[in-house]
């Protein structure tokens, strides 16, 4: 039972990290990118590639995975967001990020193979540790570090305040001399770096698997929608709740209905509280 709870916390931490990455991009661009889960997938796959195929030590591989994530985040902004946001059709960004996500998933599938490959051990620890095993505490520690770091960044640094200004009102921020385009690009790079970190930390839990991206895109989004769009606390709570809910349901009813249960949770929350648990009620139809 304890194992169930801890593994739920760990997988929930990964969902929460994906939700955080969504939030970072959403705050500056008002775009929910379909590629969010694929960033984490790239972190895991490239981490395994650096360590297994190239034989690099774990810290170097971590830096490499984070850099790959950041590069992919930036690439998403440059290719799929920048040009599309210039036009004012609200659906186009969904299509362009979906297209990019499909391409990345297929490219990784062709290059890396469609079978999940094991992710190497990061710390020296034998397999008898049970619930204290590194595959559980690594993602949890990573997401806690991410959340604290983001909080510090938003509250204490100049750039964080610039981010908040852009997220509150992009036009006003622009009028005050903030380069909103550059801020947006930077936010995508940061989201990519954090997503890469999360994917790397959770690699032993999820394996290096090319189809992970789409699942994470969905679950990260569910975590975020349950917790409330735009709220980091909401992403954490939603992610952990979703992870616990899923593993408990698997423990009680068997593993065949994971997605059904996750979506059921989403639907219930959306019907009862459409803006999510911690979301702000900002409806502006016109």
């Amino acid at each position, binding site marked *: 039972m304890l194992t169930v709870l801890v593994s739920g916390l760990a997988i929930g931490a990964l969902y929460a990290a994906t939700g955080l990455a969504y939030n970072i991009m959403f705050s500056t661009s008002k775009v929910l990118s379909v590629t969010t889960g694929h960033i984490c997938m790239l972190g895991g796959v490239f981490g395994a590639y650096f360590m297994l195929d190239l034989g690099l030590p774990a810290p170097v591989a971590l830096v490499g995975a984070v850099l790959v994530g950041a590069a992919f985040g930036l690439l998403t902004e440059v*290719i799929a967001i920048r040009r599309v946001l210039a036009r004012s059709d609200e659906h186009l960004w969904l299509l362009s990020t*979906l297209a990019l996500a499909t391409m990345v998933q297929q490219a990784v599938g062709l290059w890396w193979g469609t079978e999940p490959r094991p992710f190497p051990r990061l710390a020296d620890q034998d397999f008898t540790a049970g619930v204290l095993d590194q595959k559980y505490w690594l993602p949890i520690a990573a997401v806690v570090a991410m959340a604290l770091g983001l909080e510090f960044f938003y509250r204490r640094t100049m750039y964080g305040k610039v981010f908040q200004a852009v997220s509150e009102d992009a036009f006003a921020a622009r009028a005050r001399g903030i380069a909103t385009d550059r801020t947006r690009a930077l936010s995508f790079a940061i989201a990519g770096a954090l997503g890469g970190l999360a994917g790397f930390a959770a690699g032993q839990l999820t394996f290096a698997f090319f189809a992970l991206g789409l699942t994470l895109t969905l679950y990260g989004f569910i975590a975020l929608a349950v917790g409330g769009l735009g709220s980091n606390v909401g992403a954490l709570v939603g992610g952990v709740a979703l992870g616990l809910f899923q593993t408990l349901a698997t423990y009680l009813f068997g593993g065949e209905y994971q997605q059904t249960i996750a979506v059921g949770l989403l639907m219930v929350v959306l019907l009862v509280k459409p803006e999510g648990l911690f979301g702000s009620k900002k409806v502006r*139809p016109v």
Partner: protein
Amino acid sequence: MTTSSLPRLGTLAVGGILAVTLPFWVGDFYQLHLAALIGVYWVLISGLNLVVGYTGQLSIGHVGLLSIGSYAFAILVGRYGVDPLLTLALAGGLGGLCGFLLGLPSLRLPGFYFAMATMAFALIMAELSLAQGDLTGGGAGLPVPGFAAPFDTPTGFYWLVLLVAALITWMTWNVARLMWGRGLIALRDSEVAAAAVGVPIFRLKLTVFTFSGVTAGIGGALFASLQSYITPETFVFELGLFFFVCIIIGGRGSILGPFVGTVVLTALPEMVAPLAKLGNFFYGLLLLAVVLVVPEGIGHVIKSVMARLQKKGPEPKGLQPDIGRLAAAVRRGMRQDIQRGHAS
């Protein structure tokens, strides 16, 4: 309208004759199979086109509805021996019901939420078809019987598909060009404006989505019969993405564009072997290129190129100014100005 309808009718007639006689001039059975596959896809896509192309609801998970139709057909005909043609109608009804139930909560959600809900639906359907082993055969799959006497040959089946596809295209065309279609387009372009002029937004969305569920169910039944064996692997999420890409690439708000998109995207990977290996990468690249370069779709590009070739442009209004009246009016105005000048 009257000047352009005659050549258009001619094109339609030629296309119809070509489509009907296709089994006689096509090279081999494989190409006939491909043509039937295009027809089956089109049955689903023409319904989906009303949802995606006209109403602007981005449903990327119609493959879930397709699988419902397929499994319904396989189970009812294969296990219980129900008449295939009756089952075709039943599959449509079941697809419509599931579309209605899916649309009821999810159509209230805004864009991205709706897309995610339909995607989740497709994943759930894949999960359920694996989990409910006694009903669907689980991972091993189910064999699917063919249709009865006149439609049991490849040629006969092709004609059946053609008939259904033509019928559904005609229905969607009727929806699209009359008041309904106007309402849908208004809804797509601005929900608030549409609501303000009295378009019943939610009911319209739900009706169209239910209709697309019906076509998806019928398409699924035909699809299953064409494939002759279905497993959960047949209905991967990427297939739903493929339907969606066909419409976006063809162009939103038209019927011909998505049709061309369906034909090209189905046939191209089969004809050009390297593209088949790239598969989804190719579709993604195409989607990205279309979104970035021509968001209106390729159908729109063809239309504008045709218009430029014909040098038609907007017709000159043919309004001759009445010089005498104009001069009189100008003179009167000047006189008034002068008088006003005197008064002040």
